[in-house]
C-alpha cells in the first residue's frame, strides 16, 4: 500500500466532491432540517455553517481515532455522546460571543446533535478511514452544507428583506425607486423549501448524472 501525500488527488476529491456531485443536502439528502429553518438571513446561516464545520470535522477525527475501539452494537450511542459534547461546547461559545445570533438560532444549535449529516458521515466515513482523511471529509461535507445554506439565505434575505448581512443593498442600489417591493413571501418558512427545490432542479439540469429515475 503506497502512502498518499496529504493533498494527493484522492484527498482533494474528498474536499471537492461534496460541493457538487455528492452534496450532503441536495444529493445525499442529509441535514435538511436545520438548513431550511435558519436561512431567513445570511448571518445566522453563516454562524450555523461554521458551527457544523467545527462539530463535523472534530467529531469525524475523534470517531476515526476511536474506530477500532467502538463496538459496533453501541456505536450510535457513542456517536451521540461525542456529538452532544461538541455541540454543548459550540453552544456555550456562541452564547458567550454572539448572544443575539445564538438567540435567533434557538433550538437549532441543539439540533446539530440530530443533524443527520454528522451521524451519516461518522457512520459512512469516519468508522472506516484514518483521522487525516476523516478530517478532510468533515471539512468537505461541511463546506457542501455551508454553500447551500449561504446560497439559500442570500436569495431569501435579498428578495425578502432587501438586505445582505443587514445592509440595505436594494435601497442603496435604488431598486425601490423602480417600483420594486420586498417579497414578504420569501421570509415565510415554505419558501425555503421551494428555494431548495429550485436549487436542486438547477443543479440536476446542469449535472445530468444526478437525475433520479423513479
Amino acid at each position: 500500500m503506497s502512502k498518499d501525500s496529504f493533498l494527493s488527488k484522492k484527498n482533494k476529491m474528498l474536499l471537492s466532491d461534496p460541493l457538487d456531485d455528492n452534496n450532503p443536502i441536495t444529493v445525499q439528502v442529509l441535514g435538511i432540517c436545520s438548513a431550511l429553518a435558519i436561512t431567513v438571513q445570511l448571518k445566522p446561516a453563516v454562524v450555523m455553517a461554521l458551527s457544523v464545520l467545527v462539530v463535523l470535522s472534530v467529531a469525524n477525527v475523534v470517531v476515526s481515532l476511536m474506530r477500532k475501539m467502538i463496538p459496533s452494537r453501541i456505536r450510535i450511542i457513542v456517536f451521540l455522546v461525542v456529538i452532544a459534547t461538541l455541540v454543548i461546547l459550540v453552544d456555550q461559545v456562541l452564547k458567550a460571543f454572539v448572544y443575539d445570533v445564538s438567540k435567533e438560532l434557538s433550538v437549532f444549535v441543539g439540533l446539530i446533535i440530530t443533524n443527520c449529516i454528522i451521524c451519516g458521515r461518522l457512520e459512512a466515513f469516519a468508522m472506516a478511514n484514518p483521522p487525516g482523511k476523516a478530517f478532510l471529509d468533515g471539512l468537505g461535507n461541511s463546506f457542501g452544507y455551508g454553500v447551500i445554506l449561504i446560497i439559500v439565505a442570500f436569495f431569501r434575505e435579498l428578495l425578502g428583506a432587501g438586505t445582505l448581512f443587514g445592509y440595505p443593498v436594494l435601497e442603496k442600489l435604488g431598486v425601490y425607486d423602480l417600483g420594486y417591493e420586498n417579497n414578504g413571501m420569501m421570509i415565510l418558512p415554505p419558501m425555503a423549501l421551494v428555494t431548495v427545490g429550485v436549487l436542486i432542479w438547477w443543479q440536476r439540469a446542469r449535472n445530468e448524472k444526478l437525475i433520479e429515475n423513479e
Partner: protein
Amino acid sequence: MQELANIFIKSIFIDNMVFAYFLGMCSYLAISKTVKTSVGMGAAVIFVLGITIPFNYLLENYILKEGALVWISNDFINVDLSFLSFIMFIAVIASIVQLVEMVIEKFSPSLYSSLGIFLPLIAVNCAILGGSLFMQERGYTSIIEATVFGLGSGVGWFLAIVGIAAIREKIRYSNVPPALRGLGITYIITGLMGIAFMSFMGIKL
C-alpha cells in the same frame, strides 16, 4: 381544559413540526414514498413524542432548570444545570426508544412488525429532540400541557408525512421534468403544502 385543547390544535396546525420548523425532514423525505410505510413512521413518531416529552419535562423541571434541585436541599438554589440539557435529552430519548422497542417486541409482536423498523430511526429524528427543546423553550406549566404538546406535534408530523406520501404516489403518473423528479418536486410540493397550512395561522379556541 380549553387551554389544553388550544395547545393541541396549535401544535398540530400552526406550529406544525414539518411545515413551520422543518423538523424531521430527513426521515420525512426518505420514508414518504408509499402511504403504508409513512403511516407506520408517523404512528411511531406520535408514540415516541408522547412518551419522551413528559420524561424530559420532569428532567428539566426537577434536575436541570436553575433552582430545580431545591427539592433535595435549599443549598442547591443557585445551581443551573441547563447547559447539560442537550446531552441529557438525547440520552433519555435514545434509551427510551431502545426500551420501548424491547417492550413492544415482547408484548405485541404484531405492533413490533409494523413499527419496529422505524423505532431505531427515530432516536436520531430531529423532530423528537426538537420537541423536547421547544418544550424547554416555551416553558409549559404542567406535565399535562407538555404531554398534550408532544402528542399534538406528533399528530401534526403524522398528517404531514401521510399527506406528502399520498401526493407522491399520485405524482408518479404525471410528467415531471426529469431534473425535478424525486427530491426536487417533493421539496416544492412540501413548500406548497406549507403555504396551505399557513392559512391556519391565528386560530384560537
